[in-house]
């Protein structure tokens, strides 16, 4: 069980690396595009017509992929209350309930997103050089983010259950995914 858990953590870490490269490319792309827009507009009077639309879409992708990485690194804002002070097994039991609820929320989002993707796919982008279905920039990134967060949440849920059931204290459970030792 421990070996599988470590394997999954390593796999999620690799996924996070790919996500980071993708998101970093978007961020750098946004900066270059807007910088070019300002230069072209001020210097040549020829602005990039699709800058605002592309920027808004890039923000959606950047945010949703960033949110998935943040979950792996456990960086999402959490109000620290009494749970951390509970006895080891009870603490993990509460965390198991929370991650079960996170999984339920993600499931509902994924379920409801499927028809939304079909509806959004009927309309296309306005100013971009090529016509893309609008779903590529709204429901698709959200769906991908939800699926990726489901994988992470499932791991955290299993770790919380393991912590609830085990008698020995394992400090490697429910820790940020930041490169695991083999």
């Amino acid at each position, binding site marked *: 069980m421990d070996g599988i858990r470590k394997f999954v953590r390593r796999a999620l870490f690799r996924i996070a690396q790919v996500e*980071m490269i993708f*998101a*970093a490319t978007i*961020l*750098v792309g*946004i*900066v270059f595009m*807007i*910088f070019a*827009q*300002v230069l072209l507009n*001020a210097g040549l009077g020829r602005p990039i017509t699709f800058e*605002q639309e592309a*920027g*808004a879409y*890039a*923000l*959606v992708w*950047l*945010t*949703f*992929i*960033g*949110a*998935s*990485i*943040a*979950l792996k*690194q456990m*960086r*999402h*804002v*959490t*109000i*620290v*209350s*009494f*749970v*951390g002070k509970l006895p080891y097994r009870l603490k993990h039991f*509460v*965390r198991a*309930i*929370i991650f079960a*609820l*996170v999984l*339920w*929320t993600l499931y*509902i*989002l994924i379920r*409801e*997103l499927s*028809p*939304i993707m079909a509806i959004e796919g009927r309309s296309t982008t306005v100013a971009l050089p090529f016509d893309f279905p609008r779903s590529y920039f*709204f*429901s698709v*990134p*959200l769906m991908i983010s939800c699926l990726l967060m489901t994988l992470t949440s499932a791991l955290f849920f299993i770790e919380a259950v393991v912590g609830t059931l085990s008698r020995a204290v394992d400090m490697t459970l429910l820790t940020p995914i930041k490169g695991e030792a083999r």
Partner: protein
Amino acid sequence: MIWLLLIILAVLVLLEMPIVFALPASALMYLMITDSIPPMLVVQRVASGLESYVLLAIPLFIFAGNLFNSAGIATRIFDFASACVGHIRGSLAHVNIVASVIFSGMSGVAQADAAGLGAVEVREMKKRGFSAEFSAAITAVSSIIGPIIPPSGIMIIYAVLANVSVPDLFLAGIVPGVLMSFFLMLFVYWLAKTGRIVAPVLPRKTPIEIGLSFWRALPALAAPVFLITGILTGFATPTQLGALTVVYAIFLGFLTRDLTFSSLWGSIQDTVVTCGVLVFIIAAATPFSAILALESVPQQLAIVLLSISENPLIVLLIVNISLLIFGMVMDTTAILLVAVPVLVPVMAALGIDPVHFGIIMVINLLIGTLTPPFGILLFVMSEVAKVEYKPLLRQTAPFYIPLFIFLIVITYWPALSLSLPNYIFAR
């Protein structure tokens, strides 16, 4: 039935569910229980809630702040502030505040100020004989100046939610931001004069020394000047100015050889994750906000508030106290997302300018980041300065006095916020 939504949210937050999941989870549970609206209608808004070019300024200003931190700008700013005000009674505590004012012109979030510039400030203050707890406390307090003076992530979110102009809000924050720094400096002076803090004074610098530190800090000082000029002249939008500031920070970092490719990559990674945390809350809160709107909560709240009093001054007092209480137990962005759509129409009905109300709200919520039990800046500074939470809180508590007085002044003196945008944009 709206109380049910709030109770579910409160329970989930207390059980330490991340806010980004607590908001949609409570909304979806509410919809399942009441069977009032199909979930698809609110889920649809999650992604489209981010369709805003203005919001793009948030990751860009976060990126710029991270780059300035990586490029060693913090040390130059601190040295310059030290040369200017280090000799005044209170010494490095004043330097801390002035450095925050300067750095606030480059960074859009208080945490970047606290964690980046804060590390330099605490290190220097401890070296000069200040207690670690007081150093951390003044750093936490001064870092809230950051989001009041432009650029400001929280103001951009407010502007999008309240449908007001970002340049208006940015300009409206300048006078209150500078005024807040004066309030804090006066208070520090009083603390030092009455012997409540140990604050060894630095020797007064000669004009040449001040000039040299100014020269070293000049590239950093140019950033806020460039930003304000951009806003005033309308040369570029706030989002474009964000991108230009990023390019400038990279250019400056490589020019001074303080920025390496490794630290650049670190800044990019931190920006991606911070964007994923901060902006994703906006998307995650849309189902919650949609339910509040569909259940006519703003209208109901307006009726309740106006039944208590139709005097704007009293309503503002009630709103301020409520926001301070919520700020103690909830995340700033989450409160903003829930409260702005509810409160702004009420304020409009009372004739309160939405830009002025934005400044009140921003200051109020920033004070919330310093108050127990969930003051995020206290946690950040506890980590940065390696001090215990309780002694840090004890050192921070006296600063609530000038902050509350300042909040009252800003609330009941709208001209402090509105004069500059009204003058610049000739209204």
